[in-house]
């Protein structure tokens, strides 16, 4: 019988903007260890620089 392939229950997410943060949260909340890698000193990406967002005019922050 073929040996079951060992997999690692961890995921690396490269980039901590809005997409990376959401991926990381969903993975962590479903039982996986996540390494979220971000080159700048804070997560948030370009979205953190936006004032309001369309079409609801919600504050980006």
């Amino acid at each position, binding site marked *: 019988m073929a040996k079951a392939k060992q997999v690692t229950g961890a995921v*690396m997410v490269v980039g901590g903007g809005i997409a990376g943060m959401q991926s990381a949260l*969903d993975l962590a909340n479903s039982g996986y260890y996540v390494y979220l890698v971000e080159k700048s000193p804070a997560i948030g990406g370009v979205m953190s620089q936006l*004032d309001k967002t369309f079409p609801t005019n919600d504050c980006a922050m």
Partner: protein
Amino acid sequence: MDLDKCIACGACSDKCPKRIPNEYNEGLDKRKAAYVRYAQAVPLKYGIDAENCIYFQKGKCKACQKFCPTGAVNYEQQEEVRDIQVGSVIISAGFKPFDPTPYVQYSYANFTNVVTALEFERILAASGPWMGHLVRPSDEAEPKKIAWIQCVGSREVNTCDHPYCSAVCCMYAIKEAVIAKEHSHTDLDAAIFFMDMRTFGKDFERYYEGAQEDGVRFIRSRIHSISELEDRSLQIEYATEDGQARVETFDMVVLSQGLETAPETIELCQKLDIDLSPGKFISTSCFEPVTTSRPGVYVCGALAGPKDIPLSVMEASAAACAAAGKLSSARGSLAQEQEFPEERPVAGDVPRVGVFVCSCGINIAGVVDVEAVAEYAKTLPYVTYVRNNLFSCSQDTQDKMAEVIAEEGLNRVVVAACTPRTHEPLFQETLVNAGLNKYLFEMANIRNQDSWVHSGDPEAATEKAMDLVRMAVAKAALLAPLQEVQLEVTPGAMVIGGGVSGMNAALNLAAQGYSCHLVERDNALGGNARSLRVTAQNQPIAPYLEELRERIEAEPLITVHLNTVIKEGEGFVGNFKTTLAGDSGEEVVEHGVTLICTGAGEYKPSEYLYGEDPRVMTHLEIDQAVLGGDLDLSEVNKAVFIQCVGSRDPEHPYCSKVCCTHSVESALAIKEANPEAQVVILYRDIRTFGERELLYKEARSKGVLFVRYDLEHKPEVKATDDGLMVTVRDHVLDRDLLIEADLVGLATAIVSHKSNDLAQMFKIPMDSDGWFLEAHQKLRPVDFATDGVFMAGLAHYPKPLEEAVAQAQAAVARAVTVLSSKEMMLPGTVATIDQRKCVGCGVCWTVCPYQAIDQDENGLAVVNEALCKGCGTCVASCRSGAPNLRGFTNQGVMAQILAL
């Protein structure tokens, strides 16, 4: 910087002598070399930018180290290289805003008052260089007239090799214009120069119309040049649509810069051997929208093609689903559940209230006399311990607080600091770590509601802080520990709708190890996709559907119910009970989550001879005829496509998003089959967003003609002896064009099924167009406010196949966050009904926005704690005072008021 020691007080930055351009504000102001990117940064820790630090560059200074109160500054830190083992990788490196500096035609480098859109975002932002005051850079005067130039670095191959549309700039420019008008003290004249207005997303068209009503001017023109006048104002030369030259002067010009992939990201992709698209985004297939060419590596966000926030968030969840798909056997093997000490019983004990007064660096202490507030707190009833913290939220303070709670035997905790919105969960966790029930906690907001708004009057602010603390203590003394309801989760799903979204949802659930019931009312799976010929990448759809069907058939975890409808639905997250009615009678299915993938329909027009002449067909009918062999495209000699049939009109005031691309694809297919054919597309705006723009470009290069019409002059179709005759008003020539046709394709709208019954059964809202309304348009695009219900596909809004697939994967990722927990804890702050006071009048269950209140067998109100969100509406509405909200009891709130 030692992150464990940094308390983000800002002393290092205050004392740092080096000032450099602040990249967060796009260089419009300066920051220090010791800095935090922005006030709300996560992690909120200062860092030293070694490239600009005087100590690192010249060997002297160390001011930051000298003034750091916690000894967090460490110049010896070295870069560490770590090898980590992971099962899969998601790349979400995002985009870089196009930099117009090198391009003379945009005049960005030379003219101060020409700014990029991102700079303009910072100008509008309260945290920006001018604190949200609308000013122009040259003289900081308020502009009275601003122009936006669209497609800067997009749809442009001559200078910058960006053949694609950046997909977001039309909307953000409209938004900036609308917000700028709001900020302006005068009647700001905002003008947007554009080629096609691409407002194709959910609620975008309404936003565009709203902006027009607000007086934003939309000028369909690609500008010729910008020149600067003596007062630094800007003169724009442009040609109107009918060819007239115009000159207009503006105080400021905003360049709507496109999105591109950063060179270092391209390098990273090359290093990882990941294929890129012609526009230098990561290349993916429409059938697997978050899967890269490298096995095990997934992508989401703007790196997979330019896109907005909701789509990025959707893809992010989709990538999480795809990345986890092959790892489900290792789920939970590395992630650790947190363990907490046993809860200390406090019932019957005399309240021992601990009060922690926060300085928040100088945020509070700079205005409020925190020492005086702390001294005052000591005099309040039941208060047995008071302490002032520099930063209550820093990790070391949290640890200290947990120690103090245990040592002093505190059984109620009040933190006088900032807002519970952001910090309550953190402090509650500290309570739990100290063995206290987390609901024995109360916050007084002496920052946002005090020091920030009364900074000019420290004395009154201090007095108000005392009032707020007294109120919080009065409520805290009455707090009782609350138990969270534990819910078992049925580890299976119900997917309603067997189109592409539903099929993908079912397969992805199965890949993650969860069983699901796939319910389809038709007699076969496939939905609308059965009538579609190809994707936007020209991939045939029929074989793909066949493959999906085969995989579903072979999958033991999926139970397919054809010819079946939902008869009844009840229950809540983790515990749904749905009655299916099908060929073999009724069946009750229990499931933990529900995925709504019910799709949408095609609009059937009553104009353009549709239904009267067989040569007038909708998109789906043409595709079906081609697939069925009833229509041979090589025999089409003269085809006319009419766009926006039933879209962007008063009946359906939205864009159906897919029809422009569909017409262009069909036109290309006709040209491919018969290069001599004359193909004309009559459009209002061509909305080939993202890399679909390349198809539009290809169609024009192959001789497909595009003629614009507007809603006031709609085309007319007439049957003649030799065929069909289409009449359209040409804007450039200002006269009618007569076009012969042997085939007229109607780009008809996608319309909602308006499934009221499903909406009621699963307690999910619909918008006025009949699309299901997500929990949050930006950040929770596949969730509903009702927990445990998710959606994907056309039921949400018209979208192309690849977005439906991504959304299905996203809905699965979100659903798995529920399914993977065997049980769920629901918040303890729920309403209760004192049935002795209830008269069964029905006001509470009418006003409850979550339908959490039912009538029991005696006609009295009962709360379903699993549905209650603790909003308190029932409490406020009841005339007999029967409802009470745990954690916010009438007694507690009254005590707060009486304490004031």
